């Protein structure tokens, strides 16, 4: 079978039982996605690189712990999320969004579309920092990482309905904060 056509779960099966070299394909598929996600937690390039390496090595070590009937992407995102949280705790740094990401968040979530755009970046940034990770993580995973409710449920290990509620409340909290700010 063509490697490119194989699903992540099929590749995992091969890595576990037949050929560990296939793991390179997993790295290729997720390196960009995960580094994009992890960049929200650190801007330090070396640190990001270290976390990414740790994530892939941990994922490899624990590959038999993955249930192939489930989505691999959610599983590896969860490892990355946990590593990022550990890093945040260790370094006491704050969440980090790029300018373009604030705009994406604003556009997709329709948070401050009618408000003064010149304040957008700074205000959304401040508002996000004010949000607890309980609301912030689902917002980021949904609007910036394009994960579905089901995937977010698997990554954060919370109920699917709760994901929806947290995103809705997170948006409301952001709006409330921005209304008061601008």
């Amino acid at each position: 079978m063509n490697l490119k056509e194989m699903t992540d779960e099929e590749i995992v099966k091969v890595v576990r039982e037949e050929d560990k070299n296939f793991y390179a394909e997993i790295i290729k598929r997720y390196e960009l996605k995960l580094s994009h996600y992890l960049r929200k937690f650190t801007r330090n390039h070396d640190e990001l690189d270290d976390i990414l390496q740790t994530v892939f090595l941990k994922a490899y070590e624990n590959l038999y712990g993955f249930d192939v009937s489930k989505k691999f992407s959610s599983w590896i995102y969860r490892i990355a999320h946990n590593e990022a949280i550990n890093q945040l705790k260790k370094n006491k740094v704050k969440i980090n969004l790029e300018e373009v990401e604030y705009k994406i968040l604003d556009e997709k979530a329709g948070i401050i579309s009618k408000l003064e755009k010149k304040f957008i970046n700074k205000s959304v940034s401040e508002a996000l920092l004010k949000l607890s990770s309980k609301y912030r993580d689902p917002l980021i995973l949904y609007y910036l990482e394009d994960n579905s409710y089901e995937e977010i449920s698997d990554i954060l290990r919370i109920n699917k309905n709760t994901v929806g509620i947290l995103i809705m409340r997170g948006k409301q909290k952001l709006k409330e904060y921005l209304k008061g700010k601008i």
Partner: protein
Amino acid sequence: MNEKENLENRIMNNIKSGKVRLKSKYIFLAKRLSLGSGLILTILLATLFFNLALFYMKETENLAYLTFGFNGFFAFLESFPYVLVISLIMLIFLAGFLTTKTDFSYKKSFGEWSIYLMIVIIFLGTALTFTNINNEFQKHKMFMSPFFEHRLPSFRGIAGPIVSIQGEEIIINTREGLEYVDLKNIKNIPILKENDFVLIIGERSKKGFLAKEIKIEEDKNKMFLIRDNTKPKSFNKNCVDNCLIEKFSIEDCFLKCENLMK
């Protein structure tokens, strides 16, 4: 591009060189099995304890004290199976904790899962009380004994068969041993005879137990845990009878026979 290759190469070199290995599938299998079996065992134990608590309340004087109204409430509290209920609550918390470690825990909300858990425990626990299992436990002194023997001391209520009557004073054989009971404060004392199983509420006095109310339990099938757990060995009927013939007071006879027993 170089960075990408670097990361990929670094990781693959670690893997190929054997520095990083796949953890054995049996480790994960053992983890899953121990978590699953631990959860099932905890739920089964919680079910069993719920059943035992129901059985205890039904087959001892505990619930019957409530028939005395407010006066019986404190006796009810005194004889309540706290150890069983606390063990049950701890098992439910343990089951909840173990559930959060499973993969399916977050698929349902915690509230929903708690409701399911409680329904299973209540339904199966109640169903168990209708089986013969508790009688078997009792027969083989399993499970029930530690909970039954570690009750609070009886200050407000006692129960057991009458072993001796003299006017307004009686001796009953409770599960804690012989008890001297003074009935003088009861306005209408029912007609009592030896071996009547009685429930009494009142309070402790220097002499023994000062009764406020007394009821005879006619149904011989009820409260068999008390009937089975009274201490016949501690009762020396000849001693009490001979003592009474010698015109000692029942209280003195009680003390004398208790001393003999020791």
